């Protein structure tokens, strides 16, 4: 049962790499967007909010196709990146990371935004009177106090990225060794005769990974909450 084949290892390793990169790249952007939505009033705020939530309500295949149109080699953004920076997303694992990052972004941002909204702004004022410039206030007060929400958002985004399927397979296809993640490997296996056992194996592995992520998030969230409450 647990003789994991090299192909399966590749899919597991790729899934992890895609989810880790998607989460790490999304996190700073997510913090910035969460802060903007929590703290600033600007023209187009409702539009930005809607845009972020779009992947949550659109069929994943639509999001994937839109990514293909814009980030494909012939697309406006993809063409530019390929031509000037040599970055290619189409049919590469980086494209899978992009698709996962976009799909998990609403889940990543939401807890971050809520935790920034919950911060007592009077603490930030106090920091200002003690000589902290606004960027220092952000780094020494806002960010550490928002840490539980930031971690929760990262874990949620990571879990979502780990399992993303529809947008990824539409955008970067299902190429073993390049874009075949656990989800797309399971999909291929259940389409082949004799594929049931290996598929079940990957199903168990992905369940274990998801549960581990949840346990880890619970642990970190508890620790961070204690800190924030000054105990």
């Amino acid at each position, binding site marked *: 049962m647990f003789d994991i084949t090299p192909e399966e290892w590749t899919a597991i390793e790729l899934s992890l790499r895609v989810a880790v990169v998607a989460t790490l790249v999304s996190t700073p952007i997510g913090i910035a967007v969460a802060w903007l939505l929590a703290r600033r009033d600007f023209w187009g705020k409702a539009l930005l909010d809607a845009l972020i939530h779009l992947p949550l309500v659109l069929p994943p295949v639509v999001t994937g196709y839109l990514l293909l149109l814009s980030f494909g080699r012939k697309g406006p953004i993809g063409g530019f990146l390929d031509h000037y920076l040599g970055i290619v997303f189409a049919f590469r694992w980086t494209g899978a990371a992009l698709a996962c990052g976009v799909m998990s972004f609403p889940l990543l941002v939401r807890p971050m935004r809520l935790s920034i909204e919950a911060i007592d702004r009077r603490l930030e004022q106090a920091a*200002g*009177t*003690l*000589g902290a410039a606004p960027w220092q206030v952000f780094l020494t*007060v806002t960010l550490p*106090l928002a840490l539980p929400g930031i971690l929760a958002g990262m874990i949620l985004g990571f879990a979502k990225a780990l399992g993303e399927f529809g947008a990824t397979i539409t955008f970067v296809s299902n190429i073993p060794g390049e874009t075949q993640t656990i989800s797309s490997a399971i999909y291929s296996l259940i389409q082949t005769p004799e594929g049931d056992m290996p598929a079940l194996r990957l199903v168990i592995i992905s369940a274990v990974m998801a549960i581990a992520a949840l346990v880890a998030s619970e642990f970190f969230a508890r620790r961070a909450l204690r800190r*924030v*409450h000054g105990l």
Partner: protein
Amino acid sequence: MLSVDVTKQLGEFRLEAAFESDSRVTGLFGASGAGKSSIINMIAGLSKPDRGTIVIGGETMDDTTQKLHVPPHRRRIGYVFQDARLFPHRNVGQNLDYGRRMNRLPPDVTHLRRILDLLDIGHLQTRRPGQLSGGERQRVALGRALLSKPRLLLLDEPLGSLDQDRKAEILPYLERLRDEENIPMVHVSHDPDETRRLAGHVVMLKRGRIVAQGGPEILPL
């Protein structure tokens, strides 16, 4: 020398106040809603006057005719809030050191020792804010403000959240502070006894206007 001449409209409420003080402790006295906190927040730079000037020790902090407004972090003021506002994610020692680090001041062990002794908070340094009593929290807040080496200390009802016994515990510390440290203070209170014990110059406010100012003898009994 502190010189304030400001007006500010806050909804229905209009604040108009002009005073100067050379006293070690200037007492802003009045009922709640008289405009004391609005004035102290403007001195701190946390809010802007609609019109007027604020000058601290010869340096202009606000001048609306020149569109000048120095932000709070460049005013070198210390502010002790009624609710202490200690940083919950840092222990007492880190809270105390915060202002020094933000102002990039070199460590000053003698100064630190003196403030810790003055306020009896040396033994609390490894505690976290959630583990302090109300009186301890307020003393730490005082120490935190003093250790940023401000040129003016603002105290907004520093005893307001404490019961009678705790007030009696903190008041002597404020008196020692006044007598032993060379920092001018602005003290906000609605308690005539507290203002009498601390302030040299009293500014009495009522519904956004100054109704009297002078020595502590102008306070009601």
